[in-house]
């Protein structure tokens, strides 16, 4: 899922204090799964912002909505009626949702309420870890299902850096597994250790952000 976290409350209050009535919008998809921007978080943040603003002397009404998906125009359109009643919006969806609202409801100011930071899996309740970097050139077929781009602190593609701790953890963070240690262990388990000895060439980063903004056309799907 796309992972996001609330921005500091002070930063949000600073944004909203100049407004009269604000629509706080959540998204029931990825950011709900990571407990940052779903309906529950919208209904948590709204009173918190109202109270924080009021305490600083600003009377700002906060109204709320949570869309099924903030990255689909059909759902975004559902906000039209509420949008006409406010002078600003704050989205706690990922950056895609924020931009969708900003584009649909231009020139209304739309502020991000979260920082979108990773593509993660929920390992257990209250613990998310990065699993994908959207690098555009997937190597998982060669690394036994562990992503060295997202899960190695240095995104190394040809083995560990040499800083792996004796317990198999990363030198950068003792709570994080060295992904190359995991790759090697799984390679041994499958009797295929020789397969990772093969030197990988220069990675093609042009299919990710390094190649400029992504634009994909599928003629078979276009009208």
């Amino acid at each position: 899922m796309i992972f996001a976290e609330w921005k500091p409350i002070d930063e949000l209050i600073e944004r909203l204090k100049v407004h009269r009535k604000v629509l706080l919008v959540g998204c029931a998809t990825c950011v709900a799964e990571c407990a940052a921007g779903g309906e529950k978080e919208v209904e948590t943040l709204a009173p918190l912002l109202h109270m924080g603003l009021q305490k600083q002397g600003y009377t700002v009404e906060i109204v709320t909505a949570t869309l099924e998906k903030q990255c689909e125009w059909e759902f975004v359109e559902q906000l039209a009626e509420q949008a006409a009643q406010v002078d600003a919006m704050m989205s706690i969806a990922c950056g895609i949702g924020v931009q969708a609202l900003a584009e649909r409801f231009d020139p209304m100011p739309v502020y991000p309420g979260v920082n979108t930071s990773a593509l993660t899996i929920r390992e257990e309740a209250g613990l998310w870890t990065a699993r994908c970097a959207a690098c555009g050139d997937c190597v998982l077929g060669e690394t036994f299902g562990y992503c060295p781009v997202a899960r190695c602190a240095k995104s190394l593609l040809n083995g560990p850096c040499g800083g792996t701790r004796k317990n198999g953890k990363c030198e950068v963070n003792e709570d994080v597994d060295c992904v190359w240690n995991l790759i090697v262990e799984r390679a041994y388990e499958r009797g295929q250790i020789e397969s990772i000895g093969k030197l990988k060439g220069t990675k093609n980063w042009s299919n990710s952000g390094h190649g400029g903004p992504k634009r994909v056309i599928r003629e078979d799907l276009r009208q």
Partner: protein
Amino acid sequence: MLYCQHGIRDEAKGSAWSQEADGLSVRAVMMPCSSKIEVPYVLRILESGADAVEIVACPEQSCKLLTGSLRAAKRVEYIRDLLKQIGYAPERVGISHRLSQKPDELIEIAGARADAVRAFGANPMKTGEEK
């Protein structure tokens, strides 16, 4: 005050009741389990002007749903942290672990919470200030 259904002995009080005594105004709502007390519920109560919210949960080893009161305690800590971020006294939200209380005993618990926040003054939603 939000209390677990097992926190009260006298169910004649019903699921929601109010009582005023010695300058203390208590609005009490019974919940099926303290774990059903979600963060927004508590914040909405404070937003509406309550000076404090007290949660009465089962003792952690006696929770009928095993981990309900543990979950409630974690949420109280989370709410307190949120309150600190907006400059509110975290003491405005508290939790007690009790079973089978008489209504008057619940009022005493609410009174203790009121005493804990008296120094901070009324809810800033009413006054605009936190002492």
